[in-house]
């Protein structure tokens, strides 16, 4: 297997999924955002978005903070430093492979 193709197999599989890739790309361009913003921008349903975010949180790429706005719950999301590094690394490897 040549080196270029082997790099494809080294891609982070948590990130290498279209839904999660969209989420990470959007998060990489903001300091923080809320759940409603990601719902609006990704046009996913709540369940799918929650599932992807949980997976990204487990991998340590995303920090999820549950807060309150008045009496109502408000979920804030941001990319962790590890998440930023992993995303930059993913982009680099993908670019080198294609």
């Amino acid at each position: 297997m040549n080196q270029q193709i082997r790099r494809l197999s080294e891609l982070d599989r948590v990130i290498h999924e279209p839904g999660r890739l969209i989420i990470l790309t959007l998060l990489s361009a903001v300091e923080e955002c809320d759940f409603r913003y990601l719902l609006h921008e990704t046009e996913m349903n709540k369940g799918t978005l929650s599932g992807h975010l949980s997976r990204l949180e487990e991998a340590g790429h995303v920090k999820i903070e549950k807060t309150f706005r008045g009496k109502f719950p408000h979920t804030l999301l941001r990319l962790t430093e590890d998440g930023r590094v992993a995303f930059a690394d993913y982009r680099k490897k993908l670019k080198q492979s294609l």
Partner: protein
Amino acid sequence: MLRNHFSDLALRPKIYDNVDGTAELSMGLMVLAFAVIALLDPVFGKLKFLPAGLAGLLIPMYGTLLLFMGIGALLRKAIKNHITYPRTGYAANLTLRRWGRKTWWLAVLVTAGSGVIATAVALAAGLPQKHHETIWIRFVMIPLFVAPYAFFTSRLSPEHGWKNYLAAAMAAGLLLIALLAPGGIVELSRPVLLFSAMTWLASAVVTLVIYIRNTERPVPGEE
């Protein structure tokens, strides 16, 4: 291609920042501040409490600018907090947040620096006495005012195709002003600035109305 795809997605938060027209509103108010400065210039000259010379020119100019920028910041905050964030969510733009303070100081320095240079050049050339003007300056004003609007809206408002027509209307309006407005550059700058400010503000208001029409009022407590 791959890079473009990532860049397009990464640009989304910046586009989102103007989804309600607030970025255009800020720009419009800034141009309006300059229009007000140009219109009130003869009045400022008669105010006795202002010091004579350059300071008497700069104090009302910066005062008016700060006033309009303050109004812009308050309006933007109100629209974001009461309309945009509850409807389509909150996002803190990374570039604006991280570079916010630095950009602010850079803008202040550039504004102050360009003001000092322009004043020095005007005084050195004796422009206030001569009032000389060439016809091409009248027409240079058209791209000078249309290009920023066209560039800004094509980059940060790509979903609103009607803004291309508004840019064309702005160019046509400025051409008419350049052809018909009497007087020198100072007199010409008043309708030019006012018309440009009105175009930016109209664009902002229409964008906000479209945004409100196309988004749903939030259900309390629902994320």
